[in-house]
């Protein structure tokens, strides 16, 4: 099933000039610029302050140094999607500085078309947001301001434990739990999941977590119908990539017989995505709260935490669990189990297979894991971001939850933005925010982009000129033949060759195949080999034809979606980098920069699991 290649009118998306500095054309003197392509000026805080006292911030004293700091993690830079910060960006963009987006020597036509598209998409996104009128500024950006203020102010305030480990609830960024239910839900604020991320990069402790988000509502005995209704009303969809409605999954689990199990899947092995690792290391209690909520909804007897066996991630979760154990936070017992650091180990049936005592390899479905999961029990497998959303949903209710996002897909997305951006970040954006907003969240581009990869290793390339206007939602991505995948936006620098990078990803993914299905075992190495030959400019026309044919041939023919992902990625690369395909066929390549994407080298054949024989 070949994906429709998106034709690319102008390949390169210009990087534009650096953002406005504090002195230049900035309406708000409290907002600094942030480093452009050349990095921060010496002596200046690396990350710019985004809001100052001039906005009437009670927490204006919380300054750059407290807010941001150099990070020790592997993914150093992070950031809430600050509304004010991007607001300034967007207003700057809208205020007639657009021509700066055009690269020098580029015609006006291209840039104008790009702007028009972007404006149109932006308007469409805004209109779908409840309460958004035709005002020039989108409302969530302003809303974020309040949310972030309390987020920063919260750190300086000392909350007191009420009794035992129950901590007094202060009215915090999201809707306060103490609010009467008949009142209108509090205004939607955007850094909602990431509101509690500590600026110093450590994970949020239990006390701070409870101060920040409030206590979890008491659970009922048996399946919690009220909770299920809340989940249904929120229209929350899974954030692991497939976007399956959470409530439907819960109902399927409840419909099956037996003691149910909840699996918190924190084993997403996509090397381009950092969001799961980020959530588990920074906000483990939010994820663990969500696991308890999910367990309450489906009346589970056990929660299994399936977490990548990387010391940093595993250790953070281990510490959080010990803290919760001391505080008797978990009504349902939680077991922490390591997941091997392999790509397919994060697939839900592979997780279930591994947790049942088998190898971490996907299973042939049906029976689905919902009915027949860990050791034959009905099993609810949810991604950690989904669980974090559940943790907030149980606190603040579905009306609050729907306060951001589109009507069909409410809520927010945690997006990893990397590549040719000044600061690779994990941002939280409303569903339906455009790729441009994600890039703006990372400081736009350091140089002209040749293509945007959305969705991670299993994502799709989008042409750089058209990508910024594409909304980050399942519907929006489906509209351009893409996928939301693991919530990744990668800007490929124009100096790097998209075909070569895609070939690297394809080789990596071919090596990560579990080696079970014929289409994957034979097809992926064939695709990766042909693409590598093309990228190294010793392929001929029939090779490209074979690539297309094989991409159509392997899609949908595995037990899991591994071959589909590779096929979609490669087919989209052939479409988006069509010019380069021609150039490579002629024996040349115009993009010298090698190895841009942080994709590991393919696993050696000896490290791959032997293909297991069918046991029955």
């Amino acid at each position, binding site marked *: 099933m070949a994906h429709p290649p998106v034709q690319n009118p102008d390949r390169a998306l210009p990087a534009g000039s650096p953002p406005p500095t504090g002195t230049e054309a900035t309406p708000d003197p409290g907002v600094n610029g942030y480093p452009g392509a050349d990095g921060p000026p010496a002596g200046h805080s690396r990350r710019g302050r985004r809001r100052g006292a001039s906005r009437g911030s009670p927490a204006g004293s919380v300054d750059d140094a407290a807010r941001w700091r150099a990070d020790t993690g592997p993914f150093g830079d992070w950031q809430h999607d600050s509304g004010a910060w991007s607001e300034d960006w967007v207003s700057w963009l809208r205020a007639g500085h657009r021509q700066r987006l055009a690269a020098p020597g580029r015609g006006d036509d291209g840039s104008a078309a790009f702007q028009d598209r972007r404006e149109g998409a932006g308007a469409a996104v805004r209109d779908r947001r409840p309460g958004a009128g035709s005002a020039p500024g989108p409302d969530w950006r302003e809303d974020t301001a309040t949310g972030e203020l309390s987020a920063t102010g919260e750190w300086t305030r000392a909350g007191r434990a009420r009794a035992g480990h129950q901590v007094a609830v202060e009215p915090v960024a999201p809707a306060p739990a103490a609010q009467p239910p008949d009142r209108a839900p509090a205004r939607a604020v955007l850094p909602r999941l990431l509101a509690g991320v500590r600026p110093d990069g450590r994970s949020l402790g239990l006390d701070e977590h409870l101060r920040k988000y409030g206590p979890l509502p008491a659970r009922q005995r048996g399946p919690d119908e009220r909770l299920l209704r809340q989940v249904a009303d929120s229209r929350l969809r899974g954030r692991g990539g497939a976007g399956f409605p959470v409530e439907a999954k819960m109902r399927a689990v409840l*419909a*099956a*017989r037996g003691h149910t199990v909840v699996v918190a899947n924190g084993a997403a092995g996509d090397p381009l995505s950092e969001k799961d690792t980020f959530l588990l290391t920074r906000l483990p209690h939010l994820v663990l709260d969500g696991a308890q909520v999910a367990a309450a909804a489906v009346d589970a007897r056990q929660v299994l935490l399936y977490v990548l066996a990387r010391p940093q991630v595993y250790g953070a979760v281990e510490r959080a669990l010990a803290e919760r154990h001391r505080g008797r936070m978990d009504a349902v017992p939680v077991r922490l189990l390591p997941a091997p650091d392999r790509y397919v180990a994060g697939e839900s049936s592979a997780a279930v297979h591994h947790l049942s005592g088998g190898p971490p390899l*996907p*299973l*042939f479905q*049906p*029976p689905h894991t919902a*009915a*027949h999961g860990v050791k*034959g029990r009905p099993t609810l497998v949810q991604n950690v971001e989904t669980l974090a959303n559940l943790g907030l949903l149980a606190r603040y209710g579905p009306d609050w939850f729907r306060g951001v996002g589109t009507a069909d897909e409410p809520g927010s997305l945690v997006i990893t933005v990397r590549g040719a951006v000044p600061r690779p970040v994990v941002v939280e954006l409303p569903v339906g925010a455009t790729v441009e907003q994600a890039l703006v969240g990372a400081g736009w581009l350091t140089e002209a982009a040749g293509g945007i990869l959305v969705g991670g290793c299993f994502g799709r390339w989008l042409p750089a000129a058209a990508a910024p206007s594409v909304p980050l939602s399942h519907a929006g991505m489906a509209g351009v033949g893409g996928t939301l995948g693991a919530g990744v936006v990668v800007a490929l620098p124009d100096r790097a060759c998209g075909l070569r990078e895609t070939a690297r990803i394809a080789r990596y993914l071919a090596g990560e195949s579990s080696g*079970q*299905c*014929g*289409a*994957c075992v*034979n*097809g992926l190495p*064939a695709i990766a080999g042909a693409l590598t030959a093309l990228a190294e400019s010793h392929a001929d026309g029939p090779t490209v034809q074979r690539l297309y044919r*094989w991409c159509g*041939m*392997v899609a949908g*023919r*595995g*037990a899991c979606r591994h071959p589909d992902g590779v096929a979609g990625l490669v087919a989209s690369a052939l479409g988006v980098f069509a010019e380069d395909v021609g150039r490579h066929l002629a024996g040349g390549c115009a993009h010298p920069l090698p190895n841009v994407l942080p994709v590991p080298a393919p696993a050696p054949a000896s490290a791959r699991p032997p293909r297991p024989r*069918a*046991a*029955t």
Partner: protein
Amino acid sequence: MSRAQPSSRAQPSGRAQPSSRLLLRVDPISCDGHGRCAELLSEVISLDDWGYPMPITAELPPQLEAHARRAARACPTLAITLERQRRRRAPEDGPRR
């Protein structure tokens, strides 16, 4: 692990109804690419470049049901599953190994 339904369920009346078509699925994990199914059921199953079956449709026309059962039986790895579209007992579809 062939889940070929017993032929007693394939009543002539059910065969005529389009709602109770026989569904053919190939378990890609079990399949080793022996290619016998493509010999016995070439109307529905073709082989890819590496000799693994590619069913062009899951729904079998009624006149091919007998051939499909033969192909399912002939599969050395028992990778072919045949089942009625309208399933009676969804959860108890045999224990998953």
